[in-house]
């Protein structure tokens, strides 16, 4: 663990230079991959070609739920260029990202579960030939009843989409109670209740998924892929191909955007490897945009009921949140997503008592999973709009009601999350000041409004996806007489800037130029394991691993240099490509000479660094989801103009402040803030991954409404308002140089801030996203007619969540464990997060 460095102001007062001075970290340096990206030199997976490479296409299900009766490839076999086929029986082992949801097959074995589920893989000399052949494969299906939403999943326990799960077609069901929530409601002066809905939406990365697999020998295969998680893909390949992990190499190419959509191991990746092994030739598959919509793993549609007890002064006394997630056809990260729809409600404002119930249903649609914010934007939307309503009703300023009950830094929440640094107050102050909130909120002319909302996110999940005691990130440095430093790390550059972050941290510690660092990343043969670019974990975790490896390298080189310079190693300073005596900088040598001095004395030079997050205080079942080494915080004010007559609205300005702990590179931090604003606007205003049920006489099937970029509405530059970003630095002791995440957090406040701004503008509520103009218009129409000025879901279904697991809060003197494990009935075996919960059961 590393203490945050002192701020620049303090350093200026110091006389002699020190290794604590920051020369690169905190400056807007050029991205290490920037030039290659803008000049087209970056090789994405689809850019790769190899001698004798062939192309693969998948035949995907045209029906949403059916038994496969027969597959006839005879016509396709006769098509020109066709080389081979795969069907499900050749890959019988299931896989899936979570150990508890191993429910996918590389190709469907006996059943298809959504339109887009792959059934047959075809390889041919050219992509066109593979495509032509795919059109003449005949698959006969026997249709099964389909489930289109949570309500249908509850009322239709049979036939089951999967033969596992908590009950019927409910994949996951949970109930947790932190403290005496009933007593909390009794203390309240008023109780507020809302039902809200967050529609599903998808990641929409610019790069469509692509994979190239190459066979060496007969039992070694290399897989290049646009994946965010090469390590997890490696594990799935090992399982399905039945080849030892040491003989499979996964290389994650730079991703042209991921946003969570490339975090699962995918069927097309496994098929490419299998096909390559079968044919003995390199095999490439590049998904069409339509297929990317079927891969999905995006935002779960979530219906929510939120009930909060509040004192007259706005103090929160108790909250009960219920969420119902529409999971789609497979497990994916869904069990984690389910917990995430409740876990982070407690880290922003003091919530002394908290109850959370949730279900995740299987439905016959493309599987949902993690999208930027993973499970937390939906309840955050509900909470922040709910709080805006509470503030309005109690006559308290929405900024004030938040400021007056911020969670304390270095505290433990009611659901046992350990909060470190906490800069939300500074974030709120920044956007309130910047937007002129105090003068303008509630005072703008009709049709103009300001809305405020906040959010928080993880800097990496506290636990790995499969339980183990090994590091979650590793970095290896290799130094030699050239003066160059080779940096090996399993992290994956998905556009977020992770290559630049680990390179900069290393360069900072060694005092050398970024250009003298050569990166080798995301290659399971060559690089130490990093779990992947998900859950905003890379800056903190790989960053800490890089920091440790670099400090060890610096110590090693310092020893060699100290003997040459005849000064104590501890007094040597590394900066500007030189190694010098801090008190007498004239006593110095070049970095290269210092490396030579070390290599001469110690032989070949190399160091490693690794990172394991600190243990979370929660010990109850389910406590594995939510803990993080550090939480980032964000606050936004959105200014919106609404046309009363049509409901058409435009977001005119966004002020977004984000507590990133410490900037490694402020330009990249700004980029992530603006990118989050952009993506959040899309979710708030227009994006939806939705399906249409065909009428009964047409099989009642479910098809994606618009699997194309033409009709899936997403904002363009022309929709983007000016954004004023504020970088707040509240360094966290767990972050490298104090750094926390920025990739996901700033998305969270956008959706509720837009909804709240519409209320300020025209006095009506739209309690769902995306907010279409006609919803605003209908709410205005209702209000004009004397009804409630609201558009949104009317009710939350009656759901038996079971007996809640009761966990006393820290305030109540709890120890982080549940007190009624027997009564709550430990749902063991299939369908539970056994491995994650085992991780926390260790303390029980």
């Amino acid at each position, binding site marked *: 663990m590393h203490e945050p460095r002192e701020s620049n102001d303090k350093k200026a007062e110091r006389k002699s230079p020190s290794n604590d001075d920051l020369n690169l970290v905190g400056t807007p340096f050029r991205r290490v991959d920037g030039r290659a990206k803008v000049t087209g030199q970056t090789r994405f997976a689809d850019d790769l070609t190899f001698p004798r490479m062939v192309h693969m296409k998948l035949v995907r299900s045209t029906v949403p739920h059916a038994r496969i009766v027969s597959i006839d490839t005879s016509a396709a076999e006769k098509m020109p260029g066709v080389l081979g086929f795969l069907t499900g029986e050749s890959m019988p082992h299931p896989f899936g990202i979570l150990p508890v949801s191993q429910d996918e097959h590389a190709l469907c074995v006996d059943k298809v579960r959504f339109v887009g589920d792959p059934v047959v893989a075809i390889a041919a000399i050219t992509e066109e030939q593979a495509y032509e052949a795919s059109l003449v494969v005949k698959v006969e299906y026997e249709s099964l009843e389909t489930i289109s939403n949570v309500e249908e999943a509850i009322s239709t326990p049979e036939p089951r989409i999967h033969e596992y799960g908590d009950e019927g077609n409910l994949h996951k069901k949970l109930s947790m109670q932190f403290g005496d929530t009933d007593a909390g409601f009794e203390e309240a002066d008023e109780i507020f209740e809302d039902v809200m809905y967050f529609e599903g939406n998808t990641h929409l990365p610019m790069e469509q998924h692509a994979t190239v697999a190459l066979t060496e020998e007969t039992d070694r295969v290399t897989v290049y892929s646009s994946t965010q998680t090469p390590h997890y893909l490696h594990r799935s390949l090992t399982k399905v191909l039945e080849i030892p992990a040491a003989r499979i190499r996964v290389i994650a190419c730079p991703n042209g955007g991921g946003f969570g959509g490339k975090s699962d191991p995918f069927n097309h990746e496994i098929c490419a490897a299998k096909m390559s092994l079968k044919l003995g030739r390199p095999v490439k598959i590049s998904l069409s945009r339509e297929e990317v919509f079927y891969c999905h793993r995006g935002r779960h549609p979530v219906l929510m009921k939120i009930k909060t007890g509040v004192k007259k002064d706005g103090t929160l006394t108790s909250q009960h949140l219920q969420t119902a997630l529409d999971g789609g056809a497979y497990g994916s990260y869904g069990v984690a997503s389910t917990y995430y729809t409740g876990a982070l409600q407690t880290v922003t404002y003091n919530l002394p008592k908290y109850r959370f119930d949730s279900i995740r249903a299987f439905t016959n649609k493309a599987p949902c999973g993690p999208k930027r914010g993973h499970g937390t934007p939906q309840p955050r939307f509900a909470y922040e709009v709910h709080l805006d309503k509470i503030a309005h009703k109690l006559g308290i300023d929405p900024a004030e009601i938040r400021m007056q009950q911020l969670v304390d830094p270095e505290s433990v929440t009611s659901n046992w999350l350990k909060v470190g640094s906490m800069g939300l107050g500074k974030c709120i102050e920044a956007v309130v000041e910047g937007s002129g909130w105090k003068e303008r909120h509630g005072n703008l002319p009709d049709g103009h409004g300001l809305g405020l909302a906040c959010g928080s996110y993880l800097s990496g999940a506290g636990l790995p996806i499969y339980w183990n005691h090994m590091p979650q990130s590793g970095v290896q440095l290799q130094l030699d007489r050239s003066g160059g430093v080779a940096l090996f790390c399993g992290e994956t550059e998905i556009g977020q800037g992770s290559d630049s972050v680990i390179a900069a941290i290393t360069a900072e510690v060694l005092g050398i130029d970024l250009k003298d660092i050569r990166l080798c990343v995301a290659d399971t043969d060559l690089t130490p394991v990093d779990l992947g670019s998900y859950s905003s974990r890379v800056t903190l975790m790989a960053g800490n691993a890089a920091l440790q490896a670099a400090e060890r390298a610096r110590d090693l080189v310092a020893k060699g240099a100290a003997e040459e310079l005849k000064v104590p190693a501890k007094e040597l300073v590394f900066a500007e490509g030189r190694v010098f005596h801090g008190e007498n900088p004239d006593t110095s040598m070049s970095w290269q000479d210092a490396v030579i001095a070390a290599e001469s004395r110690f032989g070949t030079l190399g160091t490693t660094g690794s990172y394991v997050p600190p243990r979370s205080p929660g010990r109850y079942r389910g406590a594995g989801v939510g803990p993080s080494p550090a939480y980032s915080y964000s606050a936004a004010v959105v200014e919106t103009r609404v*046309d009363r007559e049509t*409901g*058409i609205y435009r977001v005119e300005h966004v002020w977004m402040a984000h507590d990133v702990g410490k900037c490694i590179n402020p330009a990249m931090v700004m980029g992530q803030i603006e990118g989050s604003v952009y993506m959040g606007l899309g979710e708030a205003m227009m994006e939806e991954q939705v399906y249409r049920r065909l009428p009964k006489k047409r099989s009642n099937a479910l098809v994606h409404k618009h699997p194309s970029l033409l009709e899936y509405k997403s904002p*363009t530059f022309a929709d983007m308002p000016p954004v004023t970003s504020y970088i707040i630095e509240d360094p966290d002791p767990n972050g490298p140089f104090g750094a926390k995440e920025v990739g996901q957090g700033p998305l969270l406040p956008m959706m509720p801030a837009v909804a709240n701004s519409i209320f300020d503008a025209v006095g009506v509520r739209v309690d769902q996203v995306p907010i279409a103009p*006609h919803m605003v218009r209908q709410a205005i129409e209702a209000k004009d007619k004397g009804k409630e000025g609201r558009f949104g879901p009317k009710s939350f279904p009656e759901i038996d969540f079971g007996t809640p697991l009761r966990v006393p809060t820290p305030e109540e003197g709890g120890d982080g464990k549940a007190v009624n494990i027997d009564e709550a009935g430990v749902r063991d075996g299939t369908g539970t997060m056994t491995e994650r919960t085992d991780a926390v059961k260790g303390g029980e």
Partner: protein
Amino acid sequence: MRPFKVIRPTNEKEAMEQVSKGNASYLAAGTDLLNRIKEHVASPDSVVDLKSLPGMNTIEVTDQGIWIGALVRLSAVSSHTDVLSRFPAVCETIIHAATPQIRNMATVGGNLCQKPRCWYLRHEGYSCVKNGGTGCWARDGENEFHGIFDNQICSATQPSNLAPVLVAHEAVIEIASKDGVRELTADQFFIGPSSDPLREVSLEEGEFVRRVMLPESTRAGSWAYEEAREKQSFDWAQASVTLLLDRGGRKGDHRVVLGAVSPAPLRRSDIEKKIDGSDDEIAEASGIAGAGATPLSENGYKIPMLKGLIGKAIRSARSRKEG
């Protein structure tokens, strides 16, 4: 995408011969056709590229009006100084259509002849009255973006942004036909499903649009175009109102044409009559916006939306006149 042959005829006769051979389609810019091929709802063996024909790519200004060739790009129309000064509503309508990139490609003729954006019609798995089958899936299905007027047979709406303003200006559509050239007025050209559910425009087999004339006699004293859509940068209209006031200098010769709410552009003379300069003309005119509407389960919102658009259009046209 399924491969197809491209034929480049050198004259109109050859074009018509080629398109009548087997499974062929005309191609202008292809901004709609290529999408339909990619979506597997059109699968021509060959496309006859009209761009190889001479003389359809010019804008001609005469005393009677402005002739716009069918192959003129939308962006060339909207930036043409004479069209801008004499028929500004046409330009305003165009810049609400699609994206700048598409407007740089798409042609006037192609815009008029594009197929409706009905998501059932554009899904390979559906058969309906519009593609030779029976019934309308949207009526009992999902119809958020479908029509609220004349929607019994088919509830798809006319997708062309240009269509309503051409009706308002009584534009002349010149059509190349086997028997030579024939002309239709815009309101004759755009047809509803009761005339022929398979077509949205009155083109017979092998015919294509040659050019469009905006008559000088319908130049507006003032005008407005108001459109509602979900995404403000580019999107298909959910409802639109084209308003021309005092056409050809004739006081009270107004036109109100609604777009995206019916299978063909919908002229509303009842609303035109309410625009009489009285103090309550906006309330009167917008108040009857929904007259005759038969909204479906999900598109009732289009009535209040139309009310709002009509009010805005009248205010906008009146202020333009005064300004």
